[in-house]
């Protein structure tokens, strides 16, 4: 199960924080900082997985952004690694060459994208075509 999804830049600014567990606000901040400290020191030769408390982080870096998913230790690493990529491709398509600023100015839409693809900490929809079709429908609504 996914415990949370974070998108952060190298400087540690959070661009998306999606929580699938109930954390206290202070705790969220602590988690964000810890994850940032954990992934930014790793280099490209390292694995895309890192143990984190009693969970693990599966992450991938895209330009200056780190996409991190915290999952249970026995979850399938590669499946979540590609779930990140699938998500990134959808964002890229939806925002036409997504960049960090798109995520800042349209933060409320990013949540919609997440809800289409991940719900209750599980993968909900994996077809990019289906997700984008749904998002286009939503965008056309008032």
């Amino acid at each position, binding site marked *: *199960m996914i*415990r949370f999804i974070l998108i952060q830049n190298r400087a540690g600014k*959070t661009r998306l*924080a999606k929580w699938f*567990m*109930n954390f*206290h606000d202070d*705790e969220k901040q*602590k988690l964000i900082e810890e994850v940032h400290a954990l992934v930014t020191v*790793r280099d490209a*030769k*390292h*694995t*895309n*997985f*890192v*143990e984190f*408390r*009693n*969970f693990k982080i599966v992450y991938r870096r895209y330009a200056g952004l780190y996409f991190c998913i915290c999952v*249970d*230790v*026995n979850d*399938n*690493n*590669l*499946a979540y*690694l*590609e*779930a990140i990529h*699938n998500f990134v491709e959808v964002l890229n398509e939806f*925002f036409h060459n997504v960049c960090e600023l*798109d995520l*800042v*100015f*349209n*933060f*409320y839409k990013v*949540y*919609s994208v997440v*809800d289409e693809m991940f*719900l*209750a900490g*599980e*993968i*909900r*929809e*994996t*077809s*990019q*075509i*289906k997700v984008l079709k*749904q*998002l*286009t*429908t*939503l*965008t056309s*609504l*008032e």
Partner: protein
Amino acid sequence: MPNMRGDAMRGLAVFISDIRNCKSREAELRRINKELTNIRQRFRADKTLDGYQKKKYVCKLLFIFLLGHDIDFGYMEAVNLLSSNKYTEKQIGYLFISVIMNSSSDMKQLIIQNIRNDIQSRNPIFINLALQCVANIGDREMATAFTNDIPRLLVSGDTIDPVKQSAALCLLKLHRTSPESLQLNTEWTARIIHLLNDQHLGVATAAVSLIDALVKRSPDEYKGCVNLAVSRLSRIVTSSYTDFQDYTYYFVPAPWLCVKLLRLLENYPPPEDPSIRSRLNECLDTILNKAQEPLKSKKVQHSNARNAVLFEAINLIIHMDCESSLLVRACNQLGQFLQNRETNLRYLALESMCLLAASEFSHEAVKKHQETVINALKSERDVSVRQRAVDLLYAMCDRSNAEDIVQEMLTYLETADYTIREEMVLKIAILSEKYAVDYKWYLDIMLKLIRIAGDFVSEEVWYRVIQVVVNRADVQSYAAKIAFEALQAPACHENMIKVAGYILGEYGNLIALDPRSTPMIQFELLHTKYHLCSPTTRSLILSTYMKFINLFPEIKLHIQEILRHDSNYRSSDVEIQQRATEYLRLSEICSPTVLATVLEIMPPYPEKQSPLLVRLKQKKPLMEADTSGELSTAPISQSDDGPKLTDTAMHLHQQQQQNGLLVSLDTTESNGHYETSASSSLPSSFSSSSTALQTNKKFLFKNSDIIFENDILQIGIKGEPKKSVLHVEFYYGNKTNFNLTNLSASISLADELDPELRIHMEPVQTTIDPRAQIKQMGTIECLKDYRDLPKMSLSFFYSNVPQKIDFLLPVYLNKFIEKAEMDSNNYFLRWRNLDKPDQECQKIFAAKFPMSHDACGQKLEGFGWSNLHNIDVNADNFCGAGIFHTSAQQVGCLYRLEPNKQAKMYRLTIRASKAGVASHLAELLEDQF
């Protein structure tokens, strides 16, 4: 950027730009405050605010909140947006409440009503928004409110596919939050299982996750899913990627669905039906075959997706553990990955191989890769990969390769990362003991271990060395010899001094005839180290000296001189002073025969499971967070001088482990106590749904408990009630490898002016050594009945960083209850006498735990009052009595607990002679059964 028509919210974009342009934190704060004032005014003044404006302002508030500022208004406006009939307004409303609202919000009912309206609407987009919101918040109230609507949506024929997907996962969320309030109609079971067959792969993908959770709850009821999962899997893996246009990801058909299906099957043993079983084996075979095919794309996405399925298939093969051909094929495949260019694959291969090594079918096949794994240990750049290599070496070790593997691990230990040294030390210690043919080899390894990694040798490790020596007469003289030699090294680790000191004290006589190690030489050698050691080690060495007096009467005078020396006899350390005084006196007044009896060599230790394995497992639970309520941190070991293996910390620790007391953050909803009492804690356990018998009020049913724990500190409590006074002992355990300094602890009352409790705590030591614990004693006296718990405040320095911890001290009223025994007549007489309305309180509540008679009885007795038999005509019911003591009065309390197994409910009735006490006790016990 997509076309954004009416919802562009220019004002929002301008605001975000402004914030981004702020040069300083102060400027940002000013801009935000300005905006907050503006929004507040708008909300207050403008009754005619239209939907668009409301949406815009709520969205700005959300943005401000996400920047890390508190938002204390706008909730009503957000809830208003929910009833808008425009999608964009509704979406922002739902987003706001999902992100910001906490569960205690008093607008909960209003929100639930809005969600219900949307769920019952005909608009699938609105239904979806509402379901997503339920899935995001998903608390107990929602579980109760939608216990019928959502399952119905899921199985209804009219529901469109995207709504089904959301409904399935929504249900999963409610199931996790509140399994007891979600009662799924068994008629729906078959229809839910059949979602695996749904034409829409997205529906199947979402549904597998739900089914997986339901299977874990009632495996038999959902057994039918095995067949369907196998056939669905088979159809996917045998098809071509072109068959699943929308669901093909880089030439791999529906990889995520495959992974989920394989994981679902891991819940069951191999299928019994031969046709299903062979079909499943074919699937697994096909997946292994595909791994050998040339890649269809150079993109890493292609190989990752393919291997995601492959690794999950291997997991299933390992789980079934019955097809040796599949196991061996899996092992060969992983062997190839060990040499792969991709670090990820090497890492995962090492990880999976660890599991394969445990199977008798593949253990030998795994061993073929020993050399590669050892190379990984030496050459991998990523410490986590090296860690996996260590794990695998440990798992593949047996009698045939133990010497090599232990030797390699020892070599690696010298350069190993600090983070994994302690675990490696444990593993080496375990392997060398387990596979020792010759215990001299074992001792050589252990002393070498202490020499090269002394700092990482935990107490259990050196205790164990001593236990082994004490229990094996054949190695005792060898042990004395090498311990003596080890001491001759110019720089000697303190752990080595402890081991050598202990061994020489017991068996120094076995080497005393050697002119190189006469009694005097042994003594002088040991004494050269004495002044460099910590007080605990010095205390141990004093015991050794005392034992020398018995073994070697000829050096008695020298030793007495040491004992008499001011630095010992008048040492500022109480322990040293006491030992020096007592030992000296003992040596002066006792005859040699008495001494010989008192100082006899230690008897063998009873053989039981090696404490090292316990220790290793205690380190492990972090890895099994989801399945067990085990402890997630290393234990705190005591700083003492001998191989005594139980002490309070460990005792408390084990208790905690058995009872699975960990509170999971997942259930904070039901668990207000955790939030209030330990909000500052790092949840060393932010694990999820533990089904172990647990309760969320600490110290309620027990006389000792862990009341606080984070990564640095563990606090245990022990209490012994004497009428209105509770004698308490606090244990503060330092979990780190550093000193905690400037410790101070204080307890404050909820109402200082009119105290309900009188608390007296003895002063506490201000420093806690690494991995040690200290004790603080005190008393708590109950002056009158109370509800608010006292607050415990702790401050200390950790690595020069000040730390502060506040939490509520779980000393509940019941600690002052003394049990009372009586017969049936007496019980009912008293019961009838307590008949005023404020003397009685009755609660009816749902069972939170399996309804076991014994467990209930234990809890009631642990609560403090009696559990009387033969009172109630119905033997399933519990009755009992107790006296609640305050310093001023005694309050009689009677209770009756009636379980209703059919309804999974309890009825608890309490009567107490003082008004208000009954209701308070009932509140404490509600939800604890």
